[in-house]
């Protein structure tokens, strides 16, 4: 079933409140719904016109650079930040005036935030205690939650006796043990070292699937976002740039920002030199490439051709050819990354599997890509569709 509920009022120009579509598709309401949220700190507007509807049981990631407003949005769901306009609904209930401790939300922090003076059991049991769960039931559920995060038998330990990864798993157990309506994860992997991060990524995703809980995940790491999410909301400067599945945002970036932020795509500026037949673009560097345009383009119009480094291959493959000189080459074993000067002050990156020899700095090189493998942006940086 297509994930049609995650919709957005088109980012720019804002037509506020245009779409809260899809909600009618199911009988039950979305887990979390934002309607034209504005959040301001004094004069500084952190989030503007944010609308989003999150389907129950899905894993949605807010992705963007620091300061883009993603954490602010997460905190507004929890009630830790007041919204200055719009509405937030959790499970169809408006929560603007509901204090945080009555919202029934699981929250996982970047810094774990385990209570340092309470042992693991008391930490995990904390939420159950405030929900008047009887003691034997608390013991049972805490035990179950600890098993789920693969740390059974650690009830008596203090947080200071656990490693960072273990602490974060306890924090996860604490956040899900009382079966909250939404699980909010605020950069939960950023404080961990690289190996632990990958392990936790898999773990969090697995637990989310098992419990069927709705999860909202905040990160600035594109790899985390791509590997874990059902949907990604790419944000920049308080606005939504694109919403889509990992594949959609990666393969067909809606804006120049998304193309650059996710995987540093090559952005080749040029002008449309042939508008019919196969559309052709003459790059500023002087070379002409064929592209697939979703609609006829005016001749002489300025466009940007976006090509992922992975779509550029060395050698014969690809209908389009770009020749240049290798500026730098990084050998990665199975593949190599080349920075290639294609003239006119333009440098492109190619990430290509190694077939045959590895090129060296200063050598002439020819890379190719398919016309289907690129996306066209207009002068304003928006995808032409």
């Amino acid at each position: 079933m297509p994930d049609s509920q995650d919709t957005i009022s088109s980012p720019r120009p804002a037509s506020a409140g245009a779409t809260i579509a899809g909600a009618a598709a199911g009988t039950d309401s979305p887990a979390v719904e934002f309607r034209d949220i504005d959040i301001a700190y004094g004069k500084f507007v952190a989030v503007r016109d944010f609308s989003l509807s999150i389907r129950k049981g899905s894993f949605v990631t807010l992705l963007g650079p620091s300061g883009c407003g993603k954490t602010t949005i997460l905190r507004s769901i929890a009630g830790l930040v007041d919204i200055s306009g719009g509405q937030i609904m959790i499970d169809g209930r408006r929560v603007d005036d509901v204090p945080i401790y009555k919202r029934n939300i699981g929250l996982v922090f970047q810094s774990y935030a385990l209570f340092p003076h309470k042992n693991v059991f008391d930490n995990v049991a904390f939420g159950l205690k405030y929900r008047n769960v009887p003691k034997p039931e608390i013991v049972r559920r805490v035990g179950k939650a600890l098993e789920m995060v693969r740390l059974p038998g650690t009830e008596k330990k203090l947080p200071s006796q656990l490693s960072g990864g273990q602490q974060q798993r306890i924090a996860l157990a604490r956040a899900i043990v009382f079966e909250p309506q939404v699980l909010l994860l605020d950069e939960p992997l950023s404080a961990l070292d690289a190996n632990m991060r990958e392990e936790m990524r898999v773990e969090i995703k697995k637990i989310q699937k098992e419990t069927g809980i709705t999860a909202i995940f905040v990160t600035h790491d594109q790899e985390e976002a791509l590997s874990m999410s059902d949907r990604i909301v790419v944000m920049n400067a308080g606005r939504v740039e694109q919403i889509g599945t990992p594949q959609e945002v990666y393969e067909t970036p809606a804006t120049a920002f998304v193309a650059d932020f996710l995987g540093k795509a090559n952005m080749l500026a040029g002008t449309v030199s042939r508008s019919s037949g196969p559309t052709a673009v003459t790059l500023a560097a002087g070379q002409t490439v064929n592209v697939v345009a979703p609609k006829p383009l005016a001749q002489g119009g300025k466009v940007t051709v976006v090509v992922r480094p992975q779509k550029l291959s060395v050698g014969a493959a690809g209908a389009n050819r770009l020749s240049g000189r290798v500026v730098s080459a990084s050998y990665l074993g199975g593949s190599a990354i080349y920075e290639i000067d294609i003239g006119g002050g333009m440098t492109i990156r190619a990430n290509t599997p190694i077939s045959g020899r590895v090129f060296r700095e200063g050598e002439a090189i020819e890379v190719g890509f398919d016309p289907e493998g690129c996306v066209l942006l207009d002068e304003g940086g928006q995808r032409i569709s």
Partner: protein
Amino acid sequence: MKTRRREEGRWAWRLTGFITVCVYIFMFAPIVATVILSFNASMFGGFPMTGFSLQWYYKLMANDAVLAAFRTSLWIALVTAMVTTAVGVVTAFALVRFDFPGKQALSTLVILPALVPETILGVGLLVLIKSIDQPRTMLLLVLGHILLAVPYVVLITQARMAGIRRVYEEAALSLGASRFSSFREITLPLLVPAVVGGALLAFTISFDNTSASLFWRPAGVETMPTQILSMLKISISPEINALGTVMILVTVGIPLVGGLILQSLTRLKRRGQPTEEAR
């Protein structure tokens, strides 16, 4: 060249060591002298020692005025410690956790009593009381001591409070604890070292206070320091040395014991789980 520099270094070290020793002697000689002389058998409160005796302590025990003053000081200090700690914790919490207009001014004002000379405060409170035609009562004396101790307790608690990260409270709130519950269950326990430290400091400030107490005490009431002062007016009796030693014991001993209890409490909690794993 090299040896000369080493030579200079050695002299610098010796000088530093000498000055340090001098400072310590200067600081502790009076205390040591008082304690030693309190055991002197001589009638006169000075050196040389003529023999070891506990007679001045016995005399002290029999002195009703001294015992009354001791009791007065003790309960004033206890009340001061309790009230000041409560006020200090609440003030520090407000100053650290909330943003409100005039916060900066308030946080400066709260430590002002610690900066204003005590004599001025003493006279000031007295003048105020006189101007509204109120008698000097015990309540006034206690309130005065609280006024003197609050700044220090606020400073201590504020420093600790700033070190307690807000995420702990946010986590507690998100788990369903009300603001009050999260303060009681999370913030306050983490604040305990500052609370205990502040209470002990408030106790000693009150127990030791002389000049302000002279202004504020009701007629006929003596605290320990004012009692010593009035005894000194008559003669320098060795009894005063004994009294001084008792004062030292109380004001040094209580914080020391308090600190030790606190330390053993935290150690007890840690015991039994030897797998200390560094983050």
